[in-house]
Every structure is written in structure tokens, then in C-alpha cells.
């Protein structure tokens, strides 16, 4: 936290395309030697979930069913068509040898990118710590995110 030139991203979108952009930017920043943080809130949390069913209450389980997390389950913001679009995009990316999203996330983790889950979103959607990938940081709130942003030169809201 010495230098004020970190890169901090707030990832609110749970769309495949936006997660793809977010992880690509994070990797680029980390590769340029910058401390890089990603704060996942609301739909964004899906990108750091393991992908199991979540929720305890009736509504919580509904959210867990209709909005199931997991990086391989998230669809594009357009042309998803109940998963057909997601499959199509994956095929197209595969044929062009573009790194799959899950591998991008792994690369980001390997490069030291920190993944912060938003505690409030987790509570609202009834997502537990165990539902998140092991590499996720402890859940936190807006003050932590802002502290990261205050010593960042680049902050992005995706």
C-alpha cells in the first residue's frame, strides 16, 4: 500500500462479457506490476462463486436457482438465449484460441490480483463464504473498497 498507483475495479455485473473484460484488465494491470484489486458486488459475485446451489429461505433459494453462480455458468449480456448464446460464444472463442474465462481468473489469481466479495450482497443473496472460491479474500464492505480506491490511480466500475 506504499505507492498510490494501484488498480481497483468494482465488478457489479454478472455477465460473461463484462467479467471477461474485468479479468483481462486486471491481468494487464498485474502484469504491469500494479497492485490490483477486484471488488465483487451484487451480480458480480457470480464470477467468484463455486457454482453450487445457494440460499436458505424460499426467496434465497429462488435466487440461488435462477441466478446460479459459477464462472462457467454466467452468460453474455446480449444474445444469451437461455444458455445457447453462452455456448455459441464459448465455441467461437475456443476456435480462436482465446483463453477461457475460468483460466483468465486463475491467471489473475496467480499474478496476485485480490478478489474481494461484498458482504452485504452475500447476505442479501444468501451466499455463504463456503459458496465462494477458496482464493476469495474475506468479505468486506464499502469502506474497504474505498480504502483500496483511495490509493489507486485507476478505478473502474464494471
Amino acid at each position: 500500500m506504499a505507492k498510490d498507483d494501484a488498480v481497483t475495479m468494482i465488478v457489479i455485473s454478472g455477465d460473461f462479457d463484462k467479467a471477461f473484460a474485468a479479468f483481462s484488465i486486471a491481468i494487464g494491470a498485474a502484469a504491469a506490476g500494479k497492485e490490483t484489486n477486484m471488488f465483487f458486488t451484487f451480480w458480480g459475485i457470480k464470477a467468484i462463486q463455486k457454482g453450487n446451489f445457494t440460499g436458505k429461505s424460499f426467496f434465497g433459494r429462488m435466487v440461488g436457482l435462477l441466478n446460479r453462480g459459477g464462472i462457467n455458468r454466467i452468460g453474455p449480456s446480449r444474445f444469451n438465449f437461455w444458455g445457447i448464446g453462452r455456448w455459441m460464444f464459448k465455441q467461437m472463442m475456443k476456435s480462436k484460441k482465446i483463453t477461457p474465462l475460468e483460466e483468465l481468473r486463475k491467471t489473475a489469481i496467480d499474478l496476485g490480483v485480490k478478489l474481494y466479495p461484498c458482504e452485504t450482497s452475500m447476505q442479501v443473496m444468501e451466499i455463504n463464504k463456503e459458496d465462494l472460491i477458496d482464493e476469495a479474500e474475506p468479505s468486506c464492505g464499502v469502506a474497504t473498497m474505498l480504502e483500496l480506491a483511495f490509493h489507486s490511480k485507476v478505478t473502474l466500475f464494471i
Partner: protein
Amino acid sequence: MPQDSKSDVKLNLEGMLCPIPIVKVSQAIKGMQVGGVLEATATDPGVLADIPAWARSTGNELISIQKEGKIITFLVKKLK
């Protein structure tokens, strides 16, 4: 090309697309000594803009970058 003797580390980035070439270059540079030279080949045209930008933002020296046919060859010297 007479560049073979100038480089300490060689990297083949052909077929890889953004952001992977940058990752591989930064990882290779990390493992080198200051003053060392990295030579890499790539096919992603984005590399032509991205490697110079990466070198500027990390403070390393881009000795050369050139495209011959589909192959882009560049030399980066580690400065810090």
C-alpha cells in the same frame, strides 16, 4: 536475423491473444536479471501496440519490434 546472440531469454507467443502475451512477457522478465534481454515472437497484431505500452508503464526498454509477414518479433531489455 542476427539477433540470436543478443537475447538471454526467448519466448514463443505465437497464437496467443490478449492478455496472455503481456502476462508471459512480464513473467519472463520477472525471472531475469536487470540488463537481460528478452526476445519473443508473436502473431497477435495487438502486440504491436501493447508491448510498447507495457514497456512504458513498467519502465523497461523496448529495443525493437518488427513485423515480418504474420510474425512479430520484439526485444525487451529489463531495466529494473
